Protein backbone atom coordinates (compact mmCIF):
# COMPACT_ATOMS: atom_id res chain seq x y z
CA UNK A 1 0.00 0.00 0.00
CA UNK A 2 1.30 3.44 -0.91
CA UNK A 3 -0.27 6.75 0.03
CA UNK A 4 0.69 10.18 -1.37
CA UNK A 5 -0.98 13.43 -0.36
CA UNK A 6 -1.81 15.28 -3.60
CA UNK A 7 -4.19 18.04 -2.56
CA UNK A 8 -5.14 20.01 0.50
CA UNK A 9 -7.23 23.08 1.17
CA UNK A 10 -4.94 25.95 2.21
CA UNK A 11 -4.54 27.26 5.77
CA UNK A 12 -5.70 24.07 7.49
CA UNK A 13 -4.56 24.99 10.99
CA UNK A 14 -5.62 28.65 10.74
CA UNK A 15 -9.11 27.38 9.92
CA UNK A 16 -9.13 24.96 12.85
CA UNK A 17 -8.26 27.91 15.12
CA UNK A 18 -10.89 30.11 13.42
CA UNK A 19 -13.56 27.44 13.90
CA UNK A 20 -12.67 27.09 17.57
CA UNK A 21 -12.79 30.84 18.21
CA UNK A 22 -15.96 31.28 16.14
CA UNK A 23 -17.88 29.08 18.56
CA UNK A 24 -16.57 30.75 21.69
CA UNK A 25 -15.98 34.43 20.87
CA UNK A 26 -18.15 37.27 19.65
CA UNK A 27 -15.79 38.10 16.78
CA UNK A 28 -16.79 37.53 13.17
CA UNK A 29 -15.24 34.42 11.61
CA UNK A 30 -13.81 36.28 8.59
CA UNK A 31 -12.06 38.79 10.88
CA UNK A 32 -10.73 35.95 13.06
CA UNK A 33 -9.43 34.08 10.03
CA UNK A 34 -7.67 37.07 8.48
CA UNK A 35 -6.10 37.96 11.84
CA UNK A 36 -4.91 34.38 12.41
CA UNK A 37 -3.50 34.04 8.89
CA UNK A 38 -0.82 36.52 9.85
CA UNK A 39 -0.13 35.05 13.28
CA UNK A 40 1.25 31.50 13.05
CA UNK A 41 2.38 31.54 16.70
CA UNK A 42 -1.18 32.18 17.89
CA UNK A 43 -2.47 29.49 15.51
CA UNK A 44 0.00 26.96 16.98
CA UNK A 45 -1.03 27.98 20.49
CA UNK A 46 -4.75 27.50 19.81
CA UNK A 47 -4.45 24.33 17.73
CA UNK A 48 -2.13 22.83 20.35
CA UNK A 49 -5.04 22.96 22.83
CA UNK A 50 -7.61 21.26 20.60
CA UNK A 51 -9.41 18.26 22.05
CA UNK A 52 -11.28 15.66 20.02
CA UNK A 53 -14.59 15.97 21.91
CA UNK A 54 -15.61 18.77 19.55
CA UNK A 55 -14.28 17.18 16.38
CA UNK A 56 -16.41 19.38 14.14
CA UNK A 57 -13.79 22.15 14.25
CA UNK A 58 -11.44 19.76 12.42
CA UNK A 59 -13.88 19.42 9.49
CA UNK A 60 -13.30 22.71 7.65
CA UNK A 61 -10.77 21.33 5.17
CA UNK A 62 -10.27 18.49 2.70
CA UNK A 63 -7.20 16.38 2.06
CA UNK A 64 -6.79 14.24 -1.06
CA UNK A 65 -4.40 11.32 -1.55
CA UNK A 66 -3.53 8.98 -4.38
CA UNK A 67 -3.61 5.51 -2.89
CA UNK A 68 -2.10 2.43 -4.48
CA UNK A 69 -3.84 -0.53 -2.92
CA UNK A 70 -5.77 -3.70 -3.65
CA UNK A 71 -9.58 -3.71 -3.63
CA UNK A 72 -9.64 -5.59 -0.33
CA UNK A 73 -7.41 -3.02 1.32
CA UNK A 74 -9.66 -0.18 0.16
CA UNK A 75 -12.75 -2.03 1.32
CA UNK A 76 -11.17 -2.42 4.76
CA UNK A 77 -10.52 1.33 4.96
CA UNK A 78 -14.14 2.08 4.02
CA UNK A 79 -15.47 -0.42 6.54
CA UNK A 80 -13.29 1.09 9.25
CA UNK A 81 -14.39 4.66 8.47
CA UNK A 82 -17.40 5.57 6.34
CA UNK A 83 -16.23 9.16 5.97
CA UNK A 84 -13.50 8.52 3.41
CA UNK A 85 -14.48 9.27 -0.20
CA UNK A 86 -13.00 7.03 -2.89
CA UNK A 87 -12.71 7.28 -6.66
CA UNK A 88 -11.15 4.50 -8.69
CA UNK A 89 -8.50 5.78 -11.10
CA UNK A 90 -6.96 2.48 -12.24
CA UNK A 91 -7.13 -1.15 -11.20
CA UNK A 92 -5.08 -0.58 -8.05
CA UNK A 93 -4.96 3.20 -7.98
CA UNK A 94 -7.50 5.33 -6.13
CA UNK A 95 -8.20 8.93 -5.25
CA UNK A 96 -9.05 9.05 -1.58
CA UNK A 97 -10.20 12.13 0.32
CA UNK A 98 -11.37 13.09 3.79
CA UNK A 99 -11.26 15.90 6.29
CA UNK A 100 -8.91 16.10 9.27
CA UNK A 101 -11.52 14.83 11.73
CA UNK A 102 -11.82 11.58 9.81
CA UNK A 103 -8.04 11.28 9.66
CA UNK A 104 -7.50 12.04 13.36
CA UNK A 105 -10.25 9.63 14.42
CA UNK A 106 -8.89 6.88 12.16
CA UNK A 107 -5.38 7.30 13.54
CA UNK A 108 -6.75 7.27 17.08
CA UNK A 109 -8.67 4.06 16.48
CA UNK A 110 -6.31 2.04 14.26
CA UNK A 111 -2.63 1.33 14.59
CA UNK A 112 -2.11 -0.15 11.10
CA UNK A 113 0.17 0.81 8.19
CA UNK A 114 -2.52 3.00 6.63
CA UNK A 115 -2.86 5.00 9.86
CA UNK A 116 0.91 5.47 9.91
CA UNK A 117 0.93 6.69 6.31
CA UNK A 118 -1.93 9.10 7.03
CA UNK A 119 -0.09 10.58 10.01
CA UNK A 120 3.10 11.00 7.97
CA UNK A 121 1.16 12.83 5.27
CA UNK A 122 -0.08 15.42 7.79
CA UNK A 123 3.39 16.66 8.76
CA UNK A 124 3.56 19.53 6.27
CA UNK A 125 -0.08 20.60 6.18
CA UNK A 126 -1.01 20.31 9.86
CA UNK A 127 2.27 20.17 11.80
CA UNK A 128 0.85 21.19 15.19
CA UNK A 129 -1.93 18.62 15.07
CA UNK A 130 0.56 16.03 13.87
CA UNK A 131 2.80 16.73 16.89
CA UNK A 132 -0.21 16.51 19.23
CA UNK A 133 -1.14 13.11 17.80
CA UNK A 134 2.45 11.86 18.04
CA UNK A 135 2.66 13.05 21.63
CA UNK A 136 -0.60 11.23 22.43
CA UNK A 137 -2.43 14.48 23.27
CA UNK A 138 -5.08 14.09 20.58
Amino acid at each position, binding site marked *: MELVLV*SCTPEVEALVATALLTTTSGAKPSALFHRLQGDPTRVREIVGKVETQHGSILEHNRLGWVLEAKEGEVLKILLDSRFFNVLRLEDSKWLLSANLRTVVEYIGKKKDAFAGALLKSLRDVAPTLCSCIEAGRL
Partner: protein
Amino acid sequence: MRAELLSHTSFKQLRAAIGYSGVSDGDLLPHASFTFAIEGISRVCSHQLVRHRVASYSQQSQRYIPVRKLRERVVVPPSVRELGQELFSANVDAASQAYEGLVDSGVPREDARFVLPNATETNLLITMEGRSLLHFFGLRCCERAQWEIKELADGMLREVRVAEPELFRGAGPYCRQLGRCPEGRFTCGKMNEVMEMYSCVSS
Protein backbone atom coordinates in the same frame (compact mmCIF):
# COMPACT_ATOMS: atom_id res chain seq x y z
CA MET B 1 -25.56 39.44 5.85
CA ARG B 2 -22.16 38.52 4.47
CA ALA B 3 -20.69 35.34 2.93
CA GLU B 4 -16.97 35.08 2.28
CA LEU B 5 -15.18 32.09 0.81
CA LEU B 6 -12.19 31.61 3.13
CA SER B 7 -10.59 28.51 1.68
CA HIS B 8 -11.25 25.91 -1.00
CA THR B 9 -9.69 23.02 -2.87
CA SER B 10 -8.07 24.24 -6.06
CA PHE B 11 -9.77 22.18 -8.75
CA LYS B 12 -6.99 22.84 -11.23
CA GLN B 13 -4.43 21.60 -8.72
CA LEU B 14 -6.50 18.53 -7.88
CA ARG B 15 -6.98 17.63 -11.54
CA ALA B 16 -3.28 18.17 -12.28
CA ALA B 17 -2.28 16.07 -9.28
CA ILE B 18 -4.21 12.99 -10.33
CA GLY B 19 -3.34 13.47 -14.01
CA TYR B 20 -6.27 11.48 -15.44
CA SER B 21 -8.23 13.05 -18.26
CA GLY B 22 -10.93 10.38 -18.13
CA VAL B 23 -12.22 11.60 -14.76
CA SER B 24 -15.12 14.06 -15.00
CA ASP B 25 -15.60 17.19 -12.92
CA GLY B 26 -18.63 15.49 -11.39
CA ASP B 27 -16.46 12.58 -10.21
CA LEU B 28 -14.01 14.99 -8.59
CA LEU B 29 -16.57 17.28 -6.93
CA PRO B 30 -16.91 15.22 -3.72
CA HIS B 31 -13.12 15.46 -3.30
CA ALA B 32 -13.13 19.27 -3.21
CA SER B 33 -14.33 21.39 -0.32
CA PHE B 34 -15.36 25.01 0.13
CA THR B 35 -15.29 26.87 3.47
CA PHE B 36 -17.29 30.07 3.98
CA ALA B 37 -17.56 32.60 6.79
CA ILE B 38 -21.27 33.40 7.14
CA GLU B 39 -22.06 36.51 9.15
CA GLY B 40 -25.16 38.35 10.29
CA ILE B 41 -27.80 35.79 9.38
CA SER B 42 -30.77 35.04 11.64
CA ARG B 43 -31.19 31.86 13.64
CA VAL B 44 -34.14 31.18 11.28
CA CYS B 45 -31.65 31.03 8.44
CA SER B 46 -29.11 28.92 10.32
CA HIS B 47 -31.87 26.40 11.18
CA GLN B 48 -32.60 26.05 7.46
CA LEU B 49 -28.92 25.85 6.64
CA VAL B 50 -28.22 22.90 8.94
CA ARG B 51 -30.88 20.87 7.15
CA HIS B 52 -28.15 20.44 4.55
CA ARG B 53 -26.60 17.61 6.51
CA VAL B 54 -23.65 16.77 4.27
CA ALA B 55 -21.72 19.79 5.50
CA SER B 56 -19.72 20.91 8.52
CA TYR B 57 -20.72 23.78 10.77
CA SER B 58 -19.03 25.77 13.53
CA GLN B 59 -21.55 28.23 14.92
CA GLN B 60 -21.22 30.99 17.49
CA SER B 61 -22.40 29.58 20.82
CA GLN B 62 -25.05 31.38 22.87
CA ARG B 63 -23.79 29.44 25.90
CA TYR B 64 -20.41 31.14 25.74
CA ILE B 65 -21.28 34.47 24.14
CA PRO B 66 -23.77 36.78 25.84
CA VAL B 67 -26.29 38.50 23.57
CA ARG B 68 -25.95 42.23 24.20
CA LYS B 69 -27.92 45.05 22.51
CA LEU B 70 -30.36 42.60 20.96
CA ARG B 71 -32.16 45.37 19.06
CA GLU B 72 -28.99 45.90 16.99
CA ARG B 73 -28.46 42.16 16.58
CA VAL B 74 -31.65 41.05 14.87
CA VAL B 75 -32.52 40.39 11.24
CA VAL B 76 -35.74 42.16 10.22
CA PRO B 77 -37.59 40.65 7.26
CA PRO B 78 -38.63 43.17 4.55
CA SER B 79 -42.33 42.40 5.07
CA VAL B 80 -42.01 43.16 8.79
CA ARG B 81 -40.14 46.36 8.04
CA GLU B 82 -43.02 47.40 5.82
CA LEU B 83 -46.02 46.17 7.76
CA GLY B 84 -45.15 45.45 11.36
CA GLN B 85 -41.94 47.12 12.49
CA GLU B 86 -43.50 48.52 15.68
CA LEU B 87 -44.91 45.20 16.87
CA PHE B 88 -41.68 43.41 15.96
CA SER B 89 -39.48 45.91 17.81
CA ALA B 90 -41.69 45.78 20.92
CA ASN B 91 -41.32 42.01 20.98
CA VAL B 92 -37.53 42.22 20.54
CA ASP B 93 -37.29 44.78 23.34
CA ALA B 94 -39.35 42.56 25.63
CA ALA B 95 -37.18 39.54 24.80
CA SER B 96 -34.04 41.56 25.40
CA GLN B 97 -35.30 42.79 28.75
CA ALA B 98 -36.29 39.26 29.78
CA TYR B 99 -32.91 37.82 28.69
CA GLU B 100 -30.88 40.41 30.55
CA GLY B 101 -33.15 40.12 33.59
CA LEU B 102 -32.66 36.36 33.69
CA VAL B 103 -28.88 36.64 33.30
CA ASP B 104 -28.74 39.31 36.02
CA SER B 105 -30.76 36.99 38.30
CA GLY B 106 -28.09 34.35 37.93
CA VAL B 107 -29.81 32.17 35.31
CA PRO B 108 -27.05 30.62 33.15
CA ARG B 109 -26.79 32.00 29.60
CA GLU B 110 -27.60 28.55 28.23
CA ASP B 111 -31.05 28.80 29.86
CA ALA B 112 -31.65 32.55 29.53
CA ARG B 113 -31.25 32.24 25.74
CA PHE B 114 -34.56 30.35 25.57
CA VAL B 115 -36.35 33.72 25.45
CA LEU B 116 -34.36 35.04 22.50
CA PRO B 117 -36.17 35.40 19.17
CA ASN B 118 -35.46 33.48 15.96
CA ALA B 119 -34.46 36.83 14.47
CA THR B 120 -31.29 36.93 16.62
CA GLU B 121 -28.18 37.24 14.47
CA THR B 122 -25.56 34.52 14.34
CA ASN B 123 -22.18 33.89 12.70
CA LEU B 124 -20.77 30.57 11.56
CA LEU B 125 -18.30 28.70 9.43
CA ILE B 126 -19.66 26.24 6.92
CA THR B 127 -17.76 23.73 4.80
CA MET B 128 -19.37 21.78 1.98
CA GLU B 129 -17.93 19.43 -0.57
CA GLY B 130 -18.56 20.37 -4.19
CA ARG B 131 -21.48 18.04 -4.91
CA SER B 132 -23.41 19.09 -1.80
CA LEU B 133 -22.72 22.73 -2.60
CA LEU B 134 -24.24 22.33 -6.09
CA HIS B 135 -27.30 20.68 -4.51
CA PHE B 136 -27.54 23.55 -2.00
CA PHE B 137 -27.48 26.08 -4.85
CA GLY B 138 -30.05 24.00 -6.76
CA LEU B 139 -32.55 24.24 -3.91
CA ARG B 140 -31.75 27.54 -2.26
CA CYS B 141 -31.13 29.81 -5.26
CA CYS B 142 -34.61 28.83 -6.48
CA GLU B 143 -37.27 31.55 -6.61
CA ARG B 144 -39.32 29.40 -4.22
CA ALA B 145 -36.66 29.44 -1.50
CA GLN B 146 -37.22 31.67 1.52
CA TRP B 147 -35.74 35.14 0.95
CA GLU B 148 -32.95 35.08 3.54
CA ILE B 149 -31.41 31.73 2.65
CA LYS B 150 -31.81 32.59 -1.04
CA GLU B 151 -29.88 35.81 -0.48
CA LEU B 152 -27.20 33.79 1.34
CA ALA B 153 -27.02 31.12 -1.39
CA ASP B 154 -26.71 33.84 -4.06
CA GLY B 155 -23.85 35.42 -2.10
CA MET B 156 -22.05 32.09 -1.76
CA LEU B 157 -22.53 31.41 -5.47
CA ARG B 158 -20.95 34.76 -6.34
CA GLU B 159 -17.94 33.82 -4.21
CA VAL B 160 -17.34 30.41 -5.80
CA ARG B 161 -17.87 31.78 -9.30
CA VAL B 162 -14.95 34.11 -8.69
CA ALA B 163 -12.78 31.32 -7.20
CA GLU B 164 -13.68 28.51 -9.64
CA PRO B 165 -15.46 30.14 -12.59
CA GLU B 166 -15.42 27.13 -14.92
CA LEU B 167 -16.64 24.69 -12.31
CA PHE B 168 -19.59 26.84 -11.20
CA ARG B 169 -20.56 28.41 -14.52
CA GLY B 170 -23.62 26.15 -14.74
CA ALA B 171 -24.46 26.43 -11.04
CA GLY B 172 -27.58 28.10 -9.67
CA PRO B 173 -31.15 26.95 -9.07
CA TYR B 174 -32.06 23.51 -10.43
CA CYS B 175 -33.71 25.03 -13.53
CA ARG B 176 -30.31 26.49 -14.45
CA GLN B 177 -28.50 23.22 -13.67
CA LEU B 178 -30.98 20.86 -15.34
CA GLY B 179 -32.47 23.01 -18.09
CA ARG B 180 -35.94 22.26 -16.69
CA CYS B 181 -37.89 23.16 -13.57
CA PRO B 182 -38.27 20.24 -11.11
CA GLU B 183 -40.81 22.09 -8.94
CA GLY B 184 -43.86 20.75 -10.80
CA ARG B 185 -47.08 22.62 -10.01
CA PHE B 186 -45.15 24.87 -7.59
CA THR B 187 -43.00 26.30 -10.39
CA CYS B 188 -42.49 30.06 -10.32
CA GLY B 189 -43.27 30.09 -14.04
CA LYS B 190 -40.31 32.35 -14.74
CA MET B 191 -37.74 29.73 -15.73
CA ASN B 192 -36.28 31.55 -18.72
CA GLU B 193 -35.95 34.78 -16.79
CA VAL B 194 -34.30 32.98 -13.83
CA MET B 195 -31.92 31.04 -16.08
CA GLU B 196 -30.91 34.26 -17.80
CA MET B 197 -30.34 35.95 -14.44
CA TYR B 198 -28.05 33.14 -13.23
CA SER B 199 -26.05 33.16 -16.42
CA CYS B 200 -24.94 36.64 -15.36
CA VAL B 201 -24.37 36.18 -11.58
CA SER B 202 -20.79 37.13 -10.84
CA SER B 203 -18.88 39.38 -8.49
